């Protein structure tokens, strides 16, 4: 049973970690509350599914999904910078519009990838093994660190630093001559590219893409980011990104545990939330516990 929970946790935790990294890029780095995620996640799934189902190479399909995510992010960026639409509303508008776009892309609400070769199946063929959750975990365990390395490098380049500065104090770097419109668009584009990549990989892992698969993804992304930050307090960029991945894995762990507890099914969401609260609150009680122990110790002495 432990092995089973570990397997589920890492499989989904790593696949959704890319979503969390994308959300980190927009919410924390760019300080832009980007709700496009609920639309760009299924967009990635839809583009990948349609191309794979139609006989295309899964690798090309996944890259195309990333491209679609990049475009979605540019859309949100343009709405905010050129049309001066409020950041939150820009994301919402893109999310709403993407719902219809995803339906058009897929031609229907749901595409099954069960009987076609996905990226994971192709990898399995290359290594001469069968597709299994272990293979998925291993391939993601290679991919996610690569993404983190690339992202860390990027955020130390001139553009990357400009993006970080835009999130910190947009006015200041505008005064120094930087084009915050450009940095926002690039940042949002990359963020949604990552989210769409996550959507494409999740669709291939779970065997289908569904127009509703993005509902609530922004919440899960944010939860992952915040859990990661609270549990693994680090300053260096690569560690911060790793902690976001850790947060995604921990969140999935809670969901897996809650499912196994065998509670009344309607309680699943509440149990998950309570587990998250317990973990986040624990550091606070550590202080109280230490004080209590010292007080007891003093009285006994």
């Amino acid at each position, binding site marked *: 049973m432990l092995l089973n929970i570990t397997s589920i946790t890492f499989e989904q935790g790593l696949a959704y970690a890319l979503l969390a990294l994308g959300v980190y890029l927009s919410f924390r780095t760019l300080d832009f509350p980007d709700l496009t995620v609920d639309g760009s996640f299924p967009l990635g799934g839809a583009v990948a599914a349609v191309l794979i189902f139609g006989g295309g190479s899964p690798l090309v399909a996944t890259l195309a999904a990333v491209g679609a995510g990049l475009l979605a992010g540019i859309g949100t960026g343009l709405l905010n910078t050129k049309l001066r639409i409020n950041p939150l509303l820009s994301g919402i508008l893109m999310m709403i519009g993407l719902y219809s776009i995803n339906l058009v892309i897929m031609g229907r609400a749901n595409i099954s990838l069960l009987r076609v070769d996905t990226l994971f199946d192709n990898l399995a063929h290359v290594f001469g093994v069968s597709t299994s959750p272990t293979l998925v975990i291993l391939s993601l365990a290679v991919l996610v660190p690569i993404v983190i390395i690339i992202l860390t490098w990027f955020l130390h380049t001139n553009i990357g630093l400009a993006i970080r500065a835009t999130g910190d104090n947009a006015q200041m770097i505008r005064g120094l001559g930087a084009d915050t419109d450009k940095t926002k668009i690039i940042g949002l584009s990359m963020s949604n590219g990552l989210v769409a990549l996550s959507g494409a990989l999740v669709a291939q892992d779970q065997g*289908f893409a569904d127009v509703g698969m993005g509902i609530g993804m922004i919440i899960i992304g944010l939860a992952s980011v915040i859990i990661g930050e609270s549990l693994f307090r680090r300053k260096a960029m690569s560690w911060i990104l790793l902690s976001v991945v850790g947060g995604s894995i921990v969140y999935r762990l809670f969901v897996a545990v809650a499912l196994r507890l065998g509670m009344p099914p309607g309680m699943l969401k509440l149990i998950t939330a309570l587990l998250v609260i317990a973990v986040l609150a624990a550091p606070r009680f550590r202080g109280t516990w230490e004080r209590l122990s010292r007080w007891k110790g003093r009285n006994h002495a």
Partner: protein
Amino acid sequence: MRKLQYAVIFVVAISLCLGAVIGSGCGPAQQFTIGISQLVTHAALDAISDGFKDGLAEEGYVEGENVEFIEYNAHYDMPTNQIIAGILIGMNPDLILGITTPSTQALAQAQQNAGTSIPIVFGALTDPVAAGLMDDPEHPGGYITGVHDLGPIEQHVELMFEFLPNITTIGTIYNPGEANSVFQIAILQDICDTEGLTLVEASVSTSADVLAAAQSLIGRCDVIYIVTDNTAVSGLPAIVGVCEDNDIPLFIGDITSVEGGAIASIGPSFYSMGVTVGKIAARILEGENPGDIAVTSGEPTLLVVNTAAADRMGVTIPQSVLDRADEIITE
């Protein structure tokens, strides 16, 4: 002379009118508008819609000739579902078809708000009484009637025993937010209690949750059985994948999903349910009061078996089942 002229003109005018009426053909010369509200797209629900149109066509109500269909799909978005109901009621069509419980409930509510009395027929709805649409399915007494899709769950469990006489635990996945599923799970739990089986449940709220739910059942049950839950069925490929990878036999509540990779099911085809709803609709269009038409179940009941799925899940199909099967899927 004048009076004669008027008389002639009068007679000619009447003849022209009569001629137009007769000339437009026998049968229903009137143009009918029928609204359709479907909650989400999946094979079973689409089959109801197709069956509905075919059933009406068999009774002389043909799309493009004397019937215009106005169709909306909410794509599982509840606010959109409400809006669709409002739009359809507002159009004041001759009849509206609601496909699934939430779609029909929204239509009934919109009707109540508008104070209209448009006949509503439903399909893919499991329990009209629990849905609050009527008190007595034998005599609905209002503006709503239709065909319920409650499958013979007892027969499904018997079928599972026929395949695997030694099962002790059934695993299931459903969305507790779907009233039709909760109703069926309660029935399933009763049957399990009677038969001494344990029921292990995994809940989902969107299709993205289905994979994790299926994986959480690995090693905790002998078979997996899925009721007609729209969320779980949307994620059927994920469930089939997990069952095939782990040799867990998968059974399901609706026969349309057997094609999707489940081993077997018994029930009316959703298409034939749709045809029955279509014929009920035709009776209503001809003047019958929907309140007098009892809610029926679909006919006929078929046993559908998927031999390829059984192979992939490491299950042998008993010959007795193969002999009885109405439809055998081999792919």
